[in-house]
Each structure stands twice: as structure tokens, then as C-alpha cells.
């Protein structure tokens, strides 16, 4: 780390992507629909990791080379590992999450259209395996969310088009 104060920057997390930031930086992901934004953080160390999860289960992947950032189970494994490497024990982590909407009421036999709910369930299950407590969440509905986490305050800002902006 640099030992001078640097200006706050916003680290962006894309779709099926993840990253870790230290205060004063904040971390953001945009346009979550059925995807789930998961934040793992520790406010004493002022550090947070965020993943933008697209699909619930890496075992469903039909890919030859798996993109581990895309799935709830593997993305959370990687986030925990990255935070562990930065000296944060898993038992000191807390979680917040948002997203998992169903944007369209599509009638289909295909389960993929109800992926939002399954993504949320998969994230919660994985966090339970790690014994990471979920401090707050804002999931479901039929609208998009852009989320921003500040590792200093532990606040997750959620912006929507129709429901305004709030913190959890």
C-alpha cells in the first residue's frame, strides 16, 4: 500500500466478474437483474470484495474452460480466498447481497428464466457453508439494481429506476 492519502476511486465490477478494494475506495456493480451482487467485508480492516454472480452452480456449466467468476459457488470461493490472502480470516467476514430479480414473467419449462431466485439461494447456501453471516439483503422483485459498497462504513447503496435509492 502507498502510505499517502489517495483520492477515492470507484472500482467497477463487470458481469461475471469480481474484485477487492480497501478504503477509501468503493466498489460498484451496475445493472443487476437476475444476477446477484455479493459483498464480503470487514469494516475494521476497511476491506471489501464484491462478485457479480450470473449463474448459481458451476456444475451446470457446459464450458470446456470454466469461468469461475460466473457462478455463485466458485465466485464466493475465490472472494474468500482473496480476502484470506489479504490477512482477513473467514470468521471475521460479513456479507451483504442484492439482486436476484425476475425481469420478465416468461412462461417456460426452462428453469433458466427463474434464475434470479436460484442465484440468491445458491449464494446463501455458499455463505452458510463458510459460516459468513448475512447482515442485510435486498433481493427479488422485477427491477434492476446498481449497487455500491463503501468498506469504511459497511454501507451498501442500492440504486433503482423506480424504487429510488436506499442503503442496507
Amino acid at each position, binding site marked *: 500500500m502507498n502510505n499517502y492519502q489517495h483520492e477515492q476511486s470507484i472500482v467497477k465490477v463487470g*458481469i461475471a466478474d469480481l474484485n477487492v478494494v480497501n478504503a477509501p475506495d468503493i466498489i460498484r456493480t451496475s*445493472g443487476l437483474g437476475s444476477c446477484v451482487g455479493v459483498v464480503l467485508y470487514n469494516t475494521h480492516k476497511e476491506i471489501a470484495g464484491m462478485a457479480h454472480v450470473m*449463474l448459481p452452480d458451476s456444475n451446470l456449466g457446459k464450458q470446456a474452460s470454466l469461468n469461475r467468476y460466473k457462478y455463485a459457488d466458485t465466485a464466493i470461493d475465490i472472494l474468500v480466498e482473496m480476502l484470506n490472502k489479504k490477512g482477513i480470516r473467514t470468521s471475521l467476514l460479513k456479507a451483504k447481497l442484492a439482486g436476484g430479480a425476475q425481469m420478465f414473467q416468461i412462461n417456460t419449462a426452462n428453469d433458466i428464466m427463474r434464475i434470479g431466485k436460484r442465484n440468491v439461494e445458491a449464494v446463501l447456501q455458499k455463505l452458510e457453508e463458510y459460516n459468513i453471516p448475512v447482515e442485510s439483503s435486498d433481493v427479488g422483485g422485477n427491477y*434492476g439494481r446498481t449497487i455500491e459498497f463503501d468498506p469504511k462504513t459497511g454501507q451498501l447503496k442500492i440504486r433503482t*429506476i*423506480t424504487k429510488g435509492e436506499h442503503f442496507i
Partner: protein
Amino acid sequence: MNYQQFSSIQLDALKEIGNIGAGNAATSMSGLIQKKVDMEVPSIEIVAFDDVMEMVGGPDQLIVGILFQIHGKAPGMVYLLFTLEEAESLVKQMTNMDGISFTPDGEQNELALSALQEAGNILAGSYLSALSDFTNINMQPSVPHLSVDMAGAILTVGLLQISEVYDFAIIINTKINDTEDNNQGINGQLLLLPSPESFTKIFQALGIQGK
């Protein structure tokens, strides 16, 4: 099938499919608003998921999206995308009504919403029927699903099935332009996202499955 291994003949065929569909849709659109409408020559975009959102102004961008599933032998998705202003202008010209608004937290007019869905039906229907005729593969649009929200949230739905197999999408992207009037122009975007397995079927139907 790997997208990156498409031959130039196959890519050209996809572009031609988009072209034929767009031509048919433009004719329908002209009838709808009684104006000449052009569709640009489609582009074939092979893009990472983040870049799909960038095609319409980024994941945060507020858009009006109408989604159709394609039923039949070559499944996939079709999106019609408009800005708020474009959607308002289109419906205004269809209905001759004033005060059309698609602002999501404002007062949305039921009639305006159904007029836009109907326009979507006509456009997607004529687009896909041209594709069906050309390829001899049956493709039917579902009912329209309309949402006014963030581009990221709307477009991810069309990427889910692809994302089980790939980390990028192949999109046949067509811009719709009204040629007569630049201020009150009808502009929009039509995206065709075939499911991964549909490419093989389309290429087989056209006799260009080989390299």
C-alpha cells in the same frame, strides 16, 4: 461449436439473414407509421457480456426493451430496444396521441404500452418470418415482454442460456432509422441472439455447415 471458428462465409450468411429480416421489418414499420423507414446493414457482434451492455450505453442506461423468445427449430431471443424518447415518438406517430410517456416512475399510459407492444409484435414477427422463409426453419416469436429499466438487467435475460456455454455472445445488430425526419425520427435497435445450438441448424439449413 466455437463462435470464433465461424468461417467468413458463415458470418456473411448471418449478416444476410439479418439483412433480409431487417428489410421485411422496415416495410412493416413503414406501414405502421406511414413513413419511409430504413434499417442499416446489420453488424455481427461477437462480444463479451459487459460489451453487450456497452452497445446500448452501458449497464446503467435506462432503456425500453421488448423481449421475444424465438420458438421453433432454432431457438433464441429477439430484443427491440429504444430510448424513452424513441419509444415515445414511435407511439405518438402510431396513435397520434400527445402526452405519451414511458418514464418508469411517472404515469405510464396503458394504451401507449400496448401500442408499443403491438409495434414490437409486428416488427419481430416480420423479422422472424423473413428469417424463416430464407432458412426454411420454423421460427415463431413469443408474446412480447416489455420492461423499462436498466440495460444490464434487461439484456442479461437474453444472455443466460448462452452463458451456460460461452463467455461471449454473438449478436446480429440492426439499427432502425426513419429517413424523413431527423427531429422526430423513429430510431431503435433490433438484436437477434440465437441460442448456441441454433447456429449449427441455421448453417445446415443453408448448406454451409462445413468450414
